[in-house]
């Protein structure tokens, strides 16, 4: 005689919905409950007895937003639910665990799960939080709309568990179809229809004060095709104006402190190698980079604030329309946005894009977004060449120039993507569906922690890799020493000076001097190092009164405007980061794409700088 069939229930839900907490309440297992997305990555099985005395097995499945299964975790969940997973029985019923505070997301999953046709209960978790927020969900109406039992629960406090068990008892477990389901991937049209159904049910059954009062009103403006784009441009514009105006006092203070330290160290030490290393190498080099800390903090203050407020997802939505026109997938927005901090996490974030060509197009254009390492270079040149009090229609020209450089990076990335996707590969992007979070006031603690992390990372970089490179640049710019009786600056005789003079003919057509060429080389390790390198090179190139002058006035005296603008344009396009090349190789598992990346960006940078230099020369002559 065979053992009686023990019904099996699958716990399904979005990440962080409280599946693991419910699993613990049902089975009494001692599994860790955490709030991080994707915590349920292993197979977890338990058992419990219902009030009617039925033994039931329960499977805690990885969190997922849909049955489409984009990641390995989501594929396991889908295949178990559909009965396709090898070594797993077809579940007799599904308990969908929903975060009641975010019903909008889970309703789509519920509708998809219902289409599979297994007996199902919807467990509405965190109902206490909904009530605390002043919201309400009409459970009876929701149950009637969906046609399945809906039970409110508070998984972490055992609230509603007996009602849920009773609902499970009423499910026709023995009558469930034991064969795998012939589910297929929905079309874009079907996905839109599911969204529309979910939105209708949500509107009919739930009320969230946030939705009604703030989110809807704000979205009417912020997601508007015209006003939304104007607001986005205004926000970005304000951000770059603030980067210049707010940072100025702090930058001046840091600059003065660095100069004071330089004078003090210079006066304290006797003439010699050690003094030169500390004053010309470490203080002039690292100091030239450190001075930009306030601007980086202000830039990230805005980014973190907008992210916490819920605006970044709206910006993604607005940008998606633009990106779709260029052939980029909507999911490319997050990698491209991350690239404003650094291209490396941006390129790695492109893993979320399934289609290989979409992913490669995103990886190739991500380095065109203005990373924070470019900021010191942009700021230095703008401050040296754009008058501080110059205005256009009441707006500071310095901020406008910075805005223009960021915009040039974005527009170029979109144009390159357009050429790749529409003209070379001739592909259309897949539809992209995105969840917009409710607006909320940013928590000051989160903003402060975010800024602390960013500022700490910048200072660590300045104190480690940038410091080490500055020391090497000082060495290469100091040795070998000039022969006895040699005229001119000593750096001309050094390794760096000779290398700069050797390579100068290649870059002369775009207006670069040998000092710039030397600064570009360590800039390959980290872009902002070029600023420090220029600081060291000019400190060692100068004589007499110029010795302790800040870099900004030196550049404005020695560079023509055409060279300055050509240098800025070079920095917008140049493939100047070895780490980025390495990570492209790793992410594409090929040397072809790093070579394509380097080649196209070098050609673009050279051509754009060449054009800029010669046009400005012609105009200013």
């Amino acid at each position: 005689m065979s053992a009686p069939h023990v019904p099996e229930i699958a716990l399904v839900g979005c990440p962080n919905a409280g599946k693991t907490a419910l699993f613990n309440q049902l089975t009494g297992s001692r599994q860790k409950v955490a709030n991080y997305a994707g915590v349920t990555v292993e197979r977890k099985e338990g058992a419990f007895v219902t009030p009617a005395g039925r033994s039931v097995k329960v499977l805690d499945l990885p969190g997922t937003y849909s049955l489409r299964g984009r990641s390995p975790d989501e594929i396991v969940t889908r295949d178990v639910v559909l009965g396709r997973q090898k070594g797993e029985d077809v579940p007799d019923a599904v308990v969908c665990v929903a975060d009641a505070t975010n019903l909008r997301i889970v309703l789509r999953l519920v509708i998809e799960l219902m289409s599979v046709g297994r007996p199902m209960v919807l467990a509405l978790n965190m109902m206490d939080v909904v009530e605390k927020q002043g919201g309400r969900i009409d459970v009876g109406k929701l149950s009637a709309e969906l046609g399945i039992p809906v039970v409110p629960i508070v998984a972490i406090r055992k609230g509603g568990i007996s009602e849920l068990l009773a609902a499970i008892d009423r499910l026709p477990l023995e009558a469930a179809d034991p064969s795998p389901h012939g589910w297929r991937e929905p079309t874009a049209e079907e996905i839109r229809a599911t969204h529309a159904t979910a939105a209708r049910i949500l509107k009919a059954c739930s009320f969230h004060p946030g939705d009604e009062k703030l989110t809807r009103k704000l979205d009417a403006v912020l997601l508007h095709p015209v006003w939304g784009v104007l607001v986005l441009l205004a926000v970005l514009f304000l951000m770059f104006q603030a980067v210049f105006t707010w940072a100025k006092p702090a930058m001046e203070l840091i600059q003065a402190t660095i100069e004071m330290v330089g004078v003090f160290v210079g006066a304290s030490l006797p003439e010699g190698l050690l003094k030169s290393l500390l004053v010309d190498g470490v203080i002039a080099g690292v100091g030239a980079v450190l001075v930009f800390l306030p601007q980086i903090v202000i830039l990230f203050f805005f980014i973190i604030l907008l992210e916490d407020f819920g605006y970044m997802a709206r910006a993604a939505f607005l940008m998606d329309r633009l990106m779709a026109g260029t052939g980029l997938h909507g999911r490319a927005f997050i990698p491209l946005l991350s690239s404003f901090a650094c291209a490396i996490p941006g390129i790695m974030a492109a893993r979320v894009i399934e289609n290989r060509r979409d992913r490669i197009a995103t990886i190739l254009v991500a380095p065109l977004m203005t990373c924070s390492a470019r900021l010191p270079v942009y700021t230095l040149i703008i401050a040296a060449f754009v008058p501080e009090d110059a205005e256009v229609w009441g707006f500071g020209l310095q901020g406008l120039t910075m805005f223009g450089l960021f915009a040039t990076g974005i527009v170029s990335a979109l144009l390159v993507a357009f050429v790749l996707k529409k003209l070379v590969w001739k592909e259309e992007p897949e539809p992209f569906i995105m969840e917009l979070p409710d607006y909320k006031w940013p928590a000051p603690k989160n903003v402060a922690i975010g800024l602390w992390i960013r500022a700490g990372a910048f200072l660590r970089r300045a104190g480690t890799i940038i410091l080490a490179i500055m020391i090497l640049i000082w060495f290469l710019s100091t040795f070998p020493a000039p022969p006895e009786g040699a005229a001119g600056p000593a750096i001309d005789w050094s390794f760096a000076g000779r290398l700069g003079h050797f390579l100068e003919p290649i870059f002369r057509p775009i207006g670069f001097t040998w000092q710039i060429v030397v600064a570009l080389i360590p800039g390959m390790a980290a872009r902002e190092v070029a600023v420090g390198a220029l600081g060291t090179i000019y400190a060692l190139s100068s004589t007499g009164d110029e010795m302790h002058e800040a870099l900004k006035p030196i550049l404005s005296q020695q560079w023509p405007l055409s060279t300055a603008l050509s240098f800025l344009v070079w920095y917008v396009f140049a493939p100047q980061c070895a780490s980025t090349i390495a990570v492209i190789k790793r992410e594409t598992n090929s040397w072809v794409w790093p070579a394509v990346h380097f080649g196209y960006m070098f050609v673009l940078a050279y051509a754009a700088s060449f054009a800029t230099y010669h046009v400005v020369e012609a105009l200013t002559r």
Partner: protein
Amino acid sequence: MNETVLVFGVVLGAAAFVLWRFLPANLKARIAPNAGSSCSSGGCGSKDCDGGSCH
């Protein structure tokens, strides 16, 4: 200590640090398996590239 020795020691230390930072991960793992990886790309300066906190 002789000033020249001190300065060249600092320069050599800096060179070793930069070299280590840009050494491919597989070579690093062979030389010092328990040293912990810095940012996988080597030069970005963050141990948490995946978290997007490179700079």
